[in-house]
């Protein structure tokens, strides 16, 4: 069966926490390999059971591992490890062994530097660049961290570019300290200079400034390369061959999340494909709910009836809020989370069936680009 609206070289799976995004990505990967395409599923943080199901363990951290499935196309999986990617980049591009070690041991890099300007999120994007450049796969399915972090993740190349091009970096790159570890800017000011130094030390601490300055200086030769790759990934995420799948849940609180995400994707100029509402409670047989009133389980069945009605309501509301061109697909809550290749395949076929039923494959919607406010 064809992947329909998801038949693109890069499928990015986004959505909130706890909606079954990673399982969905795995099921889609299997369906893609079944259809005959060599596929890679890149994921962040799968559950132990899912890792077992795919047969990938710690070995897949930062590299691709073959999934043992009997499909016409190959299926590989990898676990994204931003820190390992960053370490590897530094090892590869550092001018010499000594400066490599100095970065890796730098206190700012180890403890704090990671969060600066979303560097860690950016590292996951770097990995995507590497995989894309190698062109070993017909399709890459990229699982992303939950909502807020996923936004950080998608915006990482933009933020990285903004940071690299901002004045902040120029200031950070200045040689702040002389060979004796004193602040250069204040050295010629004699007494007053030492006053400034004392003030800075007093507010943030010279040790921190020294660590940061060192980090940026050793890292400097890598900047141009980073800029180029960030631009490539920025373009890749917005390319025609890239489609975003939004996975969400049917609950009331998820609707706002889904709409927010759909809007942000549009604002960022990225293409939104199908919206998948996962884990929808199926309606119990009304006769069973009614007929079982005397039964000890009747209260529970009525709870299920209520959940099914709530989910149906949420689904209808979401459908009403989306534009007519959007593809909305509902997947039922399964009795057991799919934790075997068979169960993942079953989920994949269910998805493709629903996709085919929901509408003909059409080019994914590209929302008009709006201003940055919102």
């Amino acid at each position, binding site marked *: 069966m064809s992947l329909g609206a998801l038949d693109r070289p890069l499928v990015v799976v986004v959505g909130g926490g*706890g*909606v079954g995004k990673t399982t969905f990505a795995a099921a889609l990967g299997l369906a893609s390999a079944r259809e005959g395409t060599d596929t890679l599923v890149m994921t962040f943080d799968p559950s132990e059971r899912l890792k077992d199901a795919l047969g990938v363990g710690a070995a897949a951290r930062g590299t691709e591992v073959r999934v043992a499935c009997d499909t016409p196309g190959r299926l590989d999986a990898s676990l994204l490890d931003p820190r390992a990617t960053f370490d590897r980049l530094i090892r590869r591009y550092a001018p010499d062994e000594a400066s490599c070690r100095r970065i890796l041991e730098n206190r700012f890099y180890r403890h*704090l530097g990671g*969060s600066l300007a979303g560097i860690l999120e950016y590292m996951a994007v770097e990995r995507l660049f590497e995989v894309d450049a190698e062109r070993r796969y017909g399709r890459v399915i990229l699982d992303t961290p939950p909502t807020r972090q996923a936004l950080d993740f998608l915006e990482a190349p933009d933020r990285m570019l903004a940071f690299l091009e901002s004045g902040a970096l120029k200031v950070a790159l200045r040689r702040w300290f002389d060979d004796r570890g004193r602040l250069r800017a204040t050295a010629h000011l004699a007494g007053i200079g030492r006053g400034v130094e004392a003030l800075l030390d007093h507010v943030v*601490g010279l040790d921190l400034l020294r660590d940061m300055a060192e980090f940026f200086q050793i890292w400097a030769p890598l900047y141009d390369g980073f800029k180029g790759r960030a631009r490539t990934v920025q373009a890749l995420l917005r390319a025609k061959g890239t489609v975003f799948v939004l996975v969400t849940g049917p609950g009331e609180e998820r609707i706002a999340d889904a709409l927010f995400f759909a809007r942000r994707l549009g604002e960022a100029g990225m293409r939104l494909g199908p919206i998948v509402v996962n884990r929808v409670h199926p309606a*119990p047989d009304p006769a069973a709910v009614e007929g079982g009133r005397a*039964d000890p389980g009747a209260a529970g*069945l009525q709870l299920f009836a209520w959940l099914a009605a709530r989910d149906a309501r949420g689904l209808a509301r979401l459908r009403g809020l989306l534009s007519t061109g959007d593809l909305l697909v509902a997947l039922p809550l399964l009795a057991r989370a799919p934790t075997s290749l068979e169960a993942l395949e079953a989920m994949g076929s269910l998805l493709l069936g629903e996709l085919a039923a929901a509408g003909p494959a059409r080019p994914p919607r590209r929302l008009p680009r709006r201003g940055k406010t919102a």
Partner: protein
Amino acid sequence: MPGGAANLVGRLRRQQLVVVTGKGGTGKSTVAAALGRLLAARGRRVLLLELDPRENLHHLLAVPPSGGEIVAASPRLRLENVQPLRVVEALVRERLKVQVLVRRVLASPIFQHFVEGGPGFKELAILVHALGQVRREGEGGSDVVVLDAPATGHGVSLLLAPVLVAEAIPHGPVGRLAHEVAALVSDPARCGVVIVTSAEEMPVQESLELIAQLDAALGRTPETVVVNGLYPPAPAGTAAGPGGTPALHLWRERRATYERELARLARAWVGPRVELPLLALDRGPEIVAALERLLGEAA
């Protein structure tokens, strides 16, 4: 200890700060709102702090959105949506005092970058703000701040930020603040941590990891682990009545998953645990009131 310190409310009786965290989608905000109402009902002046810029706690308390201001939900319960950047700016103003410097610092791109993506400053500022609210005397003050913290991954960085900053900046006013807040979050007598989870594999996994991190970095345990949204036990006997329906099958399987994950949690975490049932109520003030009642009875 006299005065019922054995139950949850008793243990939270003297806390200045209660941090509610957990994996996204587990009902963290609902539990935070219920806890806020409960503590207010027992006589404490409570400030609920919300960090999510897409405000939604006000829906749960049936008050207008905060928009960064403090809104009163009841005489002893107030709500504030905290905007970290504004808090940092206020902090810079308060500490620097010299207007020219303040303007230059706030306008500097370095400052913006460091606060946004930087080494725990934003998180530290939020906690300093919370502490300031508790310390405030008189009318505007609160006895306890209940913090609806970000989902687990970011929630833990919120709790660990003061320690990291204190390590990086050992001296000076920022360092002193960091040390002070680090001491607060490490002290179970003044700060409570409530982890909200559902009895499913990933949320339980994340909760156990969070418990381990709290122990390693702060040398403390959470006040309680709230397991939210439990399906009721499925009826026994498969053959009779509606036993064969798919809904009942789904119910039994789901309940079995929950029991398995509850057992896994109980093996790794022997401290207090609260189990809250899945309720046939929409997200809103009603479910908060129902959970408040259940939390009030919790051990």
